[in-house]
């Protein structure tokens, strides 16, 4: 299956994402540079990687979300293309409007970098179906601006429609209602601050992230 990882200046998890995709699909993903204006034909799943795109200038993810490739990505995602954004990728997805809300400076003002316990709060999503009855997983987090914010109306709607996919067991950043990962209404766009792509090999210290990639790939 053809997959792609979009790379921005100062992306730094693009290779981790590529490793994860190759491990699950058996095929190297296409690495797409941010100045491209169109995704390659036939791509069925796109990852927006973590990092500090454009040096986090203006706001995290703000510049990347206005890049030519993301314009094309938004159009295709609105037509059903599967997309996941991790860490900075999640920030790009909220900035682009594909996911609701915004990621703000961590409540404690510190950069948090540690393994984080998460609860899967919707195991029926396209990104979590392979977890079965498992509800507790550990993914690494590494961010300064991961404090998820949305107004109460949006948060209520997310919860009611089952769009909250992951919550923090021990909220590291002040995120509203402990939200760690959400999907859009249609269920094809997903974003989270933790890094599942850094938990796919025993050498990473855990493999809890693998099923996330297996879930979405299998759903396509």
């Amino acid at each position, binding site marked *: 299956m053809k997959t792609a990882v979009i790379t921005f200046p100062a992306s730094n998890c693009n290779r981790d994402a590529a490793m994860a995709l190759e491990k699950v699909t058996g095929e190297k993903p296409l690495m797409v540079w941010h100045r491209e204006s169109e995704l390659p034909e036939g791509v069925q799943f796109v990852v927006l990687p973590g990092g500090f795109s454009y040096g986090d200038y203006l706001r995290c993810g703000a510049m990347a979300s206005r890049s030519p490739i993301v314009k094309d990505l938004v159009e295709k995602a609105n037509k059903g293309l599967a997309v996941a954004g991790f860490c900075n990728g999640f920030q790009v997805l909220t900035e682009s409007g594909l996911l*609701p809300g915004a990621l*703000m400076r961590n409540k404690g*003002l510190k950069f948090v970098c540690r393994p984080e316990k998460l609860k899967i709060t919707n195991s029926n999503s396209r990104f979590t179906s392979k977890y079965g009855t498992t509800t507790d997983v550990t993914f690494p987090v590494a961010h300064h601006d991961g404090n998820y914010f949305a107004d109460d109306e949006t948060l209520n709607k997310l919860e009611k429609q089952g769009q909250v996919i992951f919550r923090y067991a021990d909220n590291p950043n002040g995120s509203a209602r402990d939200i760690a990962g959400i999907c859009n209404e249609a269920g094809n766009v997903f974003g989270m601050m933790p890094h599942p792509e850094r938990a796919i090999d025993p050498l990473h210290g855990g493999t809890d992230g693998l099923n996330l990639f297996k879930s979405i790939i299998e759903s396509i």
Partner: protein
Amino acid sequence: MKAIIHIGLKPGVLDPQGRAISRSLNDLGFEEVTKARQGKVIELDLNGDDPAAAEARVTDMCEKLLANTVIESYKVEIED
């Protein structure tokens, strides 16, 4: 012309940096400070000589890039 844009977090949105600033000012003896909100100022040099048209254009810039209206509000000033 010049456009000066003030961008700040909307009321009700937690501003942890503002809170740290206000605490730090209190620690320095400025006990009268009860709250701080941190924002940013962006200055643009613009071609053209119609302030009303410029304000409309800059407002569009704020909506499209300069501010994230989910969490931020903005104020545009046009100077000659």
